[in-house]
């Protein structure tokens, strides 16, 4: 089992949205649909404020409730990894996976109707490339790699830096991390 993770540095992320456009062009996502998005979280009161930017997407959970909810096996783990994919030819469009995702990371493909989502650009990962969002980020705040390899950039960053994942309390074991 290989665990791929994305590690995103909120200290250097400026919330520019390049990741979103890069994903859309790389993966030819139809107009009006998004596989990733950017969130700005501001806490505190003027003038004592903290603002954090987060590029968000499917967390490719190790315990993916969407995969478990799928009645046909269309939602599945790619090869022996944590990358969650949807096999369109098995998908009935029942939307149980959408309801099962606590991150609202899935979408209904237009016009076909099967369910679609971030793939961690597995077609690029297969070629040894970073996902398109990571490869396009002008601030270099996004990193991608294997958690199983202790020398990978993601392992190293998670060892060295304070970090969080989103909603770990769901028990989904998300694999997108945010450096703080």
């Amino acid at each position, binding site marked *: 089992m290989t665990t791929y993770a994305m590690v995103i*540095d909120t*200290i*250097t992320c*400026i*919330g*520019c*949205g*390049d990741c*979103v*456009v*890069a994903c*859309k*062009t*790389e*993966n*030819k996502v139809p*107009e*009006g649909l*998004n596989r990733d998005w950017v969130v700005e979280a*501001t806490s*505190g*009161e*003027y*003038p004592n*404020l*903290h*603002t*954090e*930017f987060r590029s968000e997407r499917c967390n490719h959970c190790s315990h993916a409730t969407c995969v478990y909810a799928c009645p046909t096996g269309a939602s599945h783990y790619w090869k022996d990894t944590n990358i969650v994919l949807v*096999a*369109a*030819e098995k998908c009935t469009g029942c939307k149980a996976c959408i309801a099962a995702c606590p991150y609202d990371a899935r979408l209904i493909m237009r*016009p*076909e*109707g*099967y369910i679609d989502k971030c793939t961690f650009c597995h*077609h*690029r990962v297969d070629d040894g490339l970073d996902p*398109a969002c990571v*490869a*396009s*980020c*002008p*601030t*270099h*705040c996004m990193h991608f790699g294997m958690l199983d390899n202790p020398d990978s950039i993601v392992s190293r960053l998670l060892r060295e830096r304070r970090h969080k994942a989103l909603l770990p309390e769901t028990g989904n074991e998300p694999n997108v991390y945010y450096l703080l």
Partner: protein
Amino acid sequence: MKRREFLKISGALGAAGVMPGLLGGCTSQPLPGTGKVTTTPTVCNICFWQCAGTMYQEDGKPWKVVGHPDDPHCRGRLCTRGTGGIGSYEDPDRLRQPLLRVEGADGQEFKPVSWDEAFDFIARRMEAIGERHGRDRLALFSHGGGGKFFRTMLQAFGSDAYAHPSFAQCRGPRETGFGLTYGEGVGSPDRTDMSHSRCIVLIGSHIGENLHNSQVQTLTEAIGRGVNLITVDPRFSVPASKSRHWLAIKPGTDMALLLAWMNVLINEERYDKDYVANHCSGFDELAAHVQPFNPEWAYLETGIEPQRIRETARAMAAAAPATLIHPGRHTTWYGDDTQRSRAIAILNALLGSWGRPGGYYYQEKVKLPKFPAPKPPKPASDWKAVVQKDFPLVSTGISNVMVDASIGDDAFFKGWFVYATNLPMTLPAGHDKMEQAAQSLDLMVVVDTMPAEITGYADVVLPECTYLERYDQLRNKAERTPTLALRMPAFEPRYDSKPAWWMAKGIAGKLGLGEYFPYQDYKEVLDWQLKQVGSSLAEMEKVGVKAFPRKTPVYMEEGKPVQFNTPSGKIELYSGLLEEVGQDPLPKYTPPDRPPEGYYHLNYGRSPAHTFGRTINNPQLFELMPENAVWVHPAAAAVHGVASGDYVHLENPDGKRSQAIRVRVTQRIRPDSIFMVHGFGHTDPRQRLAYGVGADDAALMHNVKIDPVMGGTGLRASFVTLKKTSEAS
């Protein structure tokens, strides 16, 4: 918790009849990149930064555009807008063929005409202007490389006047202020060495929201290294959120802070004494000048505590010379902008950062010979001496002054060429000015890829093809490493659009001035130029970007004397030139106007998703940010009874109202200010996405302050109040 109205029940039951097609599509799409992939080098033109990239096509269809790894402008990565560049090519609302204003049955209308007809019309009008008023009475307004071709044509005709609004509405004060101090400007891309800075001070500059690629990359690289970032801004901007010190300054009082910082550096003897002694002139005058402006004085003006002013000044000194007081870019704010830029330049000099690592580096570009062509005739008059006589220190066109010189029967300018700049939304109250100018001018030619407000005033509209469909001048900008980059067509031009060189050459031909364009195809020029520097068009079509060895040092050589391009040959802390033209030789503080009760400082800025108004209609970028919102502090929101998601009209004290704009209530702004992203509020329905969304800040500016040194328009002295509306955008 999301709140969905219960009303949905009836709606959902009502929707029962709407059933998706039973036989809707089937299989998944093939994985990207599994088809036949071809690549073409390009230079992005979604903004003026001009990053080199590679355009990918798959099975003959546009796929993606990515940054060129060898390009110092983009360091391998395009920005949000560049990544969405294909949208400009695919935009169905593009200008499709030349348009000529004619008298139709229902008043004036645009009639599609052939290129030949369009060129004939233009040439006849130009000749008529030449005969009646003189051949020097045409002006060029340009924001983009293609303007150069029209300039060549106009110079050949006898008109030399041109302006980039990026001077008088943007970075003119900075270039002028630094020019007066160091003998040269900051340039573009900005020569800031943030990769090596230990302390960076941003004054009203929101890098990261303005997405100037390598600027953003070097800043975030510095942030990642833990640079001491100090941001002065009435708004908790993106860089402010990354800063160790956010100084939420009272709008318009930056000069007071700058003077106080100088006061601390000088009085605490924390300035770079050797540097100042070796390279600067006028220090004693400066030291005496700043004595009254101590942090306690500045506190009353700026609202920033004296101890924070001292603390930040000390941090700057501690990191010097690797301290960058960033010059900003859009600097036309309060009318004393050249002077404020001077203050920034002086502060950098005190810290010894000009010419030093972490401060300002020296740029170099490739020495690229000009394609042999005849020299244009000398114009009949010196237009600057006539039109811009009040601004003797300015060597380029001041767009607002030139526009004023185009209004009225006795106006100097009688014809305009407008290349890729939407003047009605660029100039304050631009619509009114355009209205007047359009009445006076005998000819207005607008060249652009998209219909926009400016095209509505044109006599002739010429549709340019996008950067992905044309060869263009080589990109040769001063940078750390001299590089050339090639823009070449990835696609045939869509519709009947054409490149600028072809248009300018065509008009010149009609005027009998063909000799000034001694080539059939611009590729000949590119190949000739490239061969002069040991490359060729064939090579560049393969590599896209080529670096050339640097011949001059990147930084000042320590211990060696430096000759600055100023009258004294030194960095001029005290400016004799300014004194000569009757301006303050040392920067002075003028308290800003304060808003009337119930009004707020109108602050505007950039979004990483858009290049001003030019990209709102780009489908890929519209999708990211389809409208602008007005940021309002909760206290102000309470006063006006508005909440996030409400719509308001902004109204200035003259009663001028904006379009409806969505409210965002946020802690991220001072209670006395509002903020909105510039570029929205398009009124041209031909841009089907951009039409009628958001509001235009430029239309609200009632208190424009003209900079007495460089003539630009100070745009941040206007005030607005909020009027709640039920009308959405």
